[in-house]
């Protein structure tokens, strides 16, 4: 659906996007991941024909963004980072205007605006002025605007930025419900968002493509060879040292660290050998010993780790702002 080859966007003083290539299949939801200033918005603006690339090619639904922008624009719905709203218009008037602008046939405009207002949950404010809407509503009106002409491709630039957790969830659900009929690219710097919504991730940093893979693959890459956290309840049958020793004997385990102990509950951090997934064996060992396995989880935020590894940032320094923005 979307083909990008060697895309480069150069400004007078710096290179915003440097030789990026990727492809997006029809019906995919792709997360476009990168720190602020990585070139996400620039890439999206090239795909939406807002600005031409300096070098390279990009095609959407088989049409080149530079040679046939009109055809591309017909097939794209775009929600920029700041929703492009006219504050002096009412929601319904605004959506009617956008529908006309996107060449929705005159007879279908009323029906389409009604549909997208229902879908994006803005029907209750249809006659309110956009200036008077809260941020969450504005974002949803922005989304309604993007899907009003039922485009093949949806490009969403940070669709959940500035929303509260409930709105973020609603927006994600909405985006997921749009998948299938639309091909979606959404940019974000929030990792859990990618895990929650997308099937595929494209990671860029400082204008360069760092990785493009499925979410599952990237998570696997990170969780293999890293630590897992185990919580065991022995019902008074064993003390921490016994459990510790038992865990160390599990094949594939390289190191066991005591974390906390509350009465009969013990928490350990278990590191497995490189390339081995010790989780099944650890679970079996605990259960065989007759203890209760309360918790067994990967102790790293997998995608976050991959991301930091790939973008070459220092974990401690970069993690704070990322999780801070995630709200």
């Amino acid at each position, binding site marked *: 659906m979307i083909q990008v080859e060697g895309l480069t966007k150069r400004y007078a003083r710096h290179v915003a996007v440097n030789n990026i290539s990727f492809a997006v299949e029809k019906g995919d939801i792709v997360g476009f991941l990168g720190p602020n200033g990585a070139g996400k918005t620039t890439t999206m*603006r090239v795909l*939406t*024909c*807002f*600005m*031409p690339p300096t070098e390279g090619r990009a095609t959407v639904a088989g049409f080149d963004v530079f040679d046939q922008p*009109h055809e591309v*624009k*017909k097939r*794209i719905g*775009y929600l*920029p980072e*700041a*929703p*492009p*709203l*006219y*504050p*002096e*218009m009412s929601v319904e*008037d605004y959506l009617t*205007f*956008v529908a*006309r*602008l*996107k*060449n929705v046939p005159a007879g279908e405009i009323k029906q389409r605006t009604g549909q997208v207002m229902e879908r994006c949950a803005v029907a209750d404010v249809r006659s309110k002025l956009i200036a008077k809407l809260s941020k969450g509503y504005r974002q949803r009106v922005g989304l309604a*605007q993007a899907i009003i002409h039922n485009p093949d491709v949806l490009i969403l630039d940070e669709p959940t930025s500035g929303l509260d957790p409930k709105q973020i969830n609603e927006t994600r659900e909405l985006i997921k419900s749009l998948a299938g009929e639309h091909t979606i690219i959404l940019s974000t710097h929030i990792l859990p968002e990618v895990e929650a919504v997308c099937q595929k991730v494209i990671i860029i940093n400082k204008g360069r493509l760092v990785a493009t893979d499925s979410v599952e693959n990237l998570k696997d890459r990170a969780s293999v060879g890293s630590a897992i956290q185990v919580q065991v309840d022995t019902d008074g049958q064993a003390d921490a040292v016994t459990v510790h020793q038992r865990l160390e004997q599990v094949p594939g385990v390289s190191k066991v660290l005591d974390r906390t102990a509350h009465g009969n509950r013990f928490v350990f951090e278990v590191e497995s050998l490189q390339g081995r997934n010790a989780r099944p064996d650890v679970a079996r060992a605990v259960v065989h010993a007759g203890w209760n396995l309360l918790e067994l989880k990967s102790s790293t935020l997998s995608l976050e780790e991959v991301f930091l590894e790939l973008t070459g940032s220092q974990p401690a320094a970069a993690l704070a702002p990322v999780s801070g923005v995630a709200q």
Partner: protein
Amino acid sequence: MRNIWTICRRELYSYFVSPIAWVLLAIFALLSGVFTYIISASFVRASLEGQMSGQSFPMNLNDQVIAPLFSNIAVVGLFLIPLISMRLFAEEKRQGTIELLATSPVHDLEIIIGKWLSAVLMYAALMAVLLADYSFLFIYGNPDWKPVATGFLGALLQGACLLAFGTFISTLTRNQIVAGAIGFALALILWILNWTTSFGNSVSVQVLNYISIVSHMDSFTKGVIDTKDLVYYVSMIFLGLFLTARSLESMRWKA
């Protein structure tokens, strides 16, 4: 065509739901009313004085009221036009809505003409106020309607021409005030260029006089549609809209 009208309609919507249109209409109604009153009052006094002194001067509503009124109104227009055109693109850039227009299946030219047309219609609404003023002259006098019609045509053409440049200026900045100020300066310069006629009649003076925007109104107010003036206005409109198109295009490359 449909896209032009879509854009134009939305612009008119914005003019009339915001205070801009109403403030402009109020200002213009006040100023044109004052001008109409002063000029017709002095006309009435002159005709009374003529009757009292027994000498009958040839009095003519068209020459002595309507033509000077049009000249005055043309100058008032110079000051109001930047207020109409300054928001056209500057506001879109500030709000980010330019991204919506630029990524929709409409051509730049449709956006430009739609916006410019809405400004011209807004200006025409101001001229409609003037029509109300003139209606009194038709009720109490018997002026020839043809110079009135050509006068309106001239005023509209002059407005359309300045609005084309105003549209261009509005693409240069995201700040309405800056766009307004530059537009105002340009209108002022185009107006005072014909003051150079007092320096003689050299070629450079003639050229400046031709460029000056108000000098082309004169024949229209006298009921004459001169091809030379028509060509001037139409080509200036084209120049203004052409510059707008270039500016939008360069904005995309720089954006």
